């Protein structure tokens, strides 16, 4: 996979990975957002589960 949007440094501007590929940028961005959402959901589930476990002791 070629991640580079540039082939030479002369005249380069936005040179971050996949800067020339809106589709891949979108996938990566959505993935990052999904990771955050998942982390919050997981956190809430952990709290609920540990609270129930604690009450059951």
């Amino acid at each position, binding site marked *: 996979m070629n991640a580079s949007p540039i082939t030479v440094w002369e005249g*380069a*501007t*936005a*040179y*971050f990975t996949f*800067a020339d590929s*809106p589709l891949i*940028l*979108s996938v990566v*961005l959505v993935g*990052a*957002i999904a990771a*955050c959402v998942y*982390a*919050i959901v997981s*956190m*809430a589930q*952990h*709290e609920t589960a*540990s*609270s129930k476990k*604690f*009450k059951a002791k």
Partner: protein
Amino acid sequence: MESAELQTRIEALEASLKMATAINSEAFYWWCTALMLAIHAGFLAYEMGASRAKNALASGLKNLVAFAFIVPTFFFVGWFIYNAFPTGLTISEAGYGALPWSANMGPNLSDNASGIFWAAFTLFAATTASIMSGSVIERIRISGFTILAIFLGSVVWILGAAWGWHPSGWLTSVLGLHDVGAAGCVHTIAGFFTLGVLINLGARIGRFNADGTVNEINGHNMPMSLIGLMLIVMGFFGFLGGCIIYTGDTWMTIYNTPTTLSAFGFNTLMGVAGGMLGCYLVTRDPFWMMSGALVGVISAAPGLDVYYPPLAFLISFAGGCVIPKLHNVLLTRFKIDDAVGAVAVHGFGGVWGLVACGIFAAGYPNAEGPAVSFLGQVESAAVFMLLGFVPGYGLSYVLKVVGLLRCSEEVEMAGLDLAEVPVKAYPESRIPAFGDGALSPAE
């Protein structure tokens, strides 16, 4: 030397000077951002120390989680909000360059500004969210807190910053708001957001007796809290440095009026000292004395660029004398259990700072819009109060309804660490908890 060669050399020198200016600017904000991390180290120590030992790690975890979420979410939406909404709720052209897929939002050899300003603003955002953090310790669910922190840090305050801490913000261009140190968009909004959350969250078990009298709930490590507060004050030098725009020719305020770093040096230190002494006089309490340092910074913040230093001292001194009393009124009369006094320190401290600037800095010209005025400052303060309180109350109410706001009574009694955190803060010590030898729920 031939004129063509001279011209070439002049152009090369100009290009070199431009690059040096860009690098100086990047370096300045880089170190301001690094220094602002001390604020988070400070909040971490301060809130863990202010918690009882049974809740120490859960309080700290909350701060760490908030920071980790604010960074990406501020990238996703925060920077866009700041650039898009200075005129109100319609999207400005500059907003499109701050969308998370924009060419400016990543390594770009033609843009030395976006990343470093985004980084500094991200730390402002994390600071704003951390202001709420201490007030809600020892009973809030970490997931609920995280949702509130993201909303405060990556949405609410930055909308306030777009309105009132931006060269084209409508509070400045229409009302003449002057608030160079962000007392309104950071402190007032965070303080009143927190008030809204605390109303729905309720007091810690054991905080109030049946007859309404108050029980003291002491943190387990006051020295750690004091060091934490001092770290926050240190970090505010990065925060306030980041409030100034470095252009290469001169320093500018966020409103494009000229200033100097010296002005901020005079008035930040005088403000810190005034707030500390004011709080000391009315409480004799080292915890409040260090909170008074924050009161001082916040009280002087709006006019750091123009105050005569002894005036900044007096404004902060007055704030320091009043804010602890306001905290007591919130506690005893309104039964608001704010564990660290953030509503009073940041919320009302911010309002006092804005109003004081209207009294003592009225008449100073703005680059855009009317001159600074008492009425403009009061109206802007009201906007910030509402912009903080309404979303804070509304979102925390929703979280309360769906059961994500508060821990169960059993968990709160035993301590959040025991139920939620897989490691122990003090494994070789016995941690008192209700039902485990302690005398009351307040212990």
